[in-house]
């Protein structure tokens, strides 16, 4: 095939087809346009203010490495005046996190940014290696995910920084939209697509400047700029992407490459259509705690593949109650249904509280991290109450999480 010329400069050889509009671009134009679009997102959403101190949640993986590289470039090119630093969480997994932290350390030198590493051991008194020793490999991802979500906020607080940016990309956001629709979770559907999420508890703003960037373009950006990033699978959660909603997203991308941003667009519209009374906390604030719930920390907002089984189990529990509810509505609710408006629809509200132990934001009396820590510290792993949901489903970390929640409810 004859080389195609770049759509933009009409000269250099095109090496990329953009998923969102099928434009064929050369290396230089692609890098420039990718950066410009992130800049437009930042400006269009007033994401930063001059002089703001911003911590980049850095794992050494592709997303956060690209985020650091792009933010450094834009900060210099457009004089944002940002004070950028890298913040890494050390889960304490020997042979896995050690290597990725080496990458982050090199990034700190390459991008001339200060780096802070905060360990689970410091924060919680347990490394993941120790957690696994106690609870085994099944369900350990739940601990890791719950701990990680708070860790970034706590790390930022310790540095006196009020804004943490993460490498969540358009594929992550699209997956979240699909999962929230499957889960029937309206509060999260109303919040999951917003670029900024903040929590009342920690006063720390979280944002995702790459939310409109295709994962494919992030990988290609890293490739063409030859960025130094680290890829491996967590030794405790190999093949985390197998059978997950991620597969569906990638199939869709294959059929219609734009569809990932199309889902984001749908998600943003639907968020605005979620009835106000179920959005939670009135404002469009998100519990940092629940972001990418059930996922593995290193998977950056991805589902683990066992989520469906957990959701099904949860829904099956409600089945009996709900069919009764429907019957009641059918018999005496006909007039109400005739004028069915926003108020006529059955909706569940969610309240936001603070954890009684650590004061972290939580939808329960005691936050998930403290509950998990209780279990660990009492030397009584909750895996003992695992119920049979089939071989495949037993692998699911979220199954465990659900059981944790149940155990917690019955304890209160």
């Amino acid at each position, binding site marked *: *095939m004859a080389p*195609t010329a770049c759509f933009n400069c009409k000269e250099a*050889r*095109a*090496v*990329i*087809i953009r998923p969102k509009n099928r434009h*064929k671009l050369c*290396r230089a134009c692609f890098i420039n346009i990718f950066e410009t679009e992130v800049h437009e997102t930042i400006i269009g959403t007033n994401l930063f203010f001059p002089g703001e101190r911003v911590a980049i949640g850095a*794992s*050494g*993986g*592709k*997303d*956060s*490495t690209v985020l650091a590289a792009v933010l450094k470039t834009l900060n210099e090119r457009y004089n944002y005046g940002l004070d950028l630093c890298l913040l890494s969480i050390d889960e304490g997994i020997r042979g896995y996190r050690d290597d*990725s932290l080496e990458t982050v350390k090199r990034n700190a030198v390459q991008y001339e940014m200060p780096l802070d590493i905060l360990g689970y051991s410091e924060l919680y008194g347990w490394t993941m290696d120790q957690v696994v020793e106690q609870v085994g490999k099944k369900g350990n991802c739940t601990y890791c995910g719950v701990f990680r979500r708070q860790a970034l906020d706590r790390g930022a607080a310790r540095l006196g920084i009020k804004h943490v940016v993460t490498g969540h990309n358009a*594929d992550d956001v699209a997956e979240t939209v699909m999962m929230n629709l499957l889960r029937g979770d309206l509060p999260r559907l109303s919040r999951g697509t917003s670029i900024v999420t903040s929590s009342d508890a920690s006063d720390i703003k979280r944002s995702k400047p790459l939310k409109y960037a295709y*994962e*494919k373009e*992030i*990988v*290609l950006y890293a*490739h*063409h700029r030859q960025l130094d*990033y*680290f*890829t*491996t*699978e*967590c030794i405790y959660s190999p*093949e*985390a*992407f*197998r059978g997950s909603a*991620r*597969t569906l997203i*990638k*199939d869709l*991308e*294959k059929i219609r490459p734009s569809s990932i941003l199309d889902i984001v667009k749908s998600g943003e519209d639907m968020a605005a259509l979620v009835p106000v009374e179920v959005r939670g906390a009135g404002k469009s604030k998100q519990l940092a705690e629940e972001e990418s719930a059930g996922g*593995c920390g*290193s*998977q*950056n907002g*991805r589902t683990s593949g066992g989520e469906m089984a957990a959701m099904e189990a949860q829904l099956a529990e409600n089945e009996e109650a709900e069919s009764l509810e429907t019957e009641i509505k059918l018999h005496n609710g006909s007039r109400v249904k005739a004028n069915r408006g926003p108020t006529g629809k059955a909706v569940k509200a969610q309240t936001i509280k603070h954890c009684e132990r650590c004061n972290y934001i939580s939808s329960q009396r005691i936050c998930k991290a403290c509950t998990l820590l209780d279990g660990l510290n009492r030397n009584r792993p909750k895996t003992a109450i695992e119920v049979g949901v089939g071989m495949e489903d037993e692998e699911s970390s979220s199954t465990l999480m659900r059981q944790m929640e149940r155990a917690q409810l019955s304890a209160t």
Partner: protein
Amino acid sequence: MTDTPNAGQGEFPIPITVEFTGGLELLFENERKHKVVLPARLEDGSRPNISYLLKYLVDNLMKDQRIDMFIMEDNVRPGILVLINDADWELEGEEAYELQQGDNIVFVSTLHGG
């Protein structure tokens, strides 16, 4: 291999470089770069293309049993990018691209975290 009367330049075996990154190297004994030599012509007289290369890699290079992490529906699994001499394979005809001597083929997984 078939008899080839015209020993033109195209009839020499085709040496290429294959790279696995983004986590895919884990399926290939954690080696990123591999030198591969493909035959100039296949049994049916056609030239080796990416489809052939995929089959070749699975049969000859891949020791890992988890073939579905790399191949699905006889093609590259969705979520894995293919670069042909640094260009997106979609610009080169995807699996129908016929390999040339010295080509550099990169497979990048976007599926792995990091």
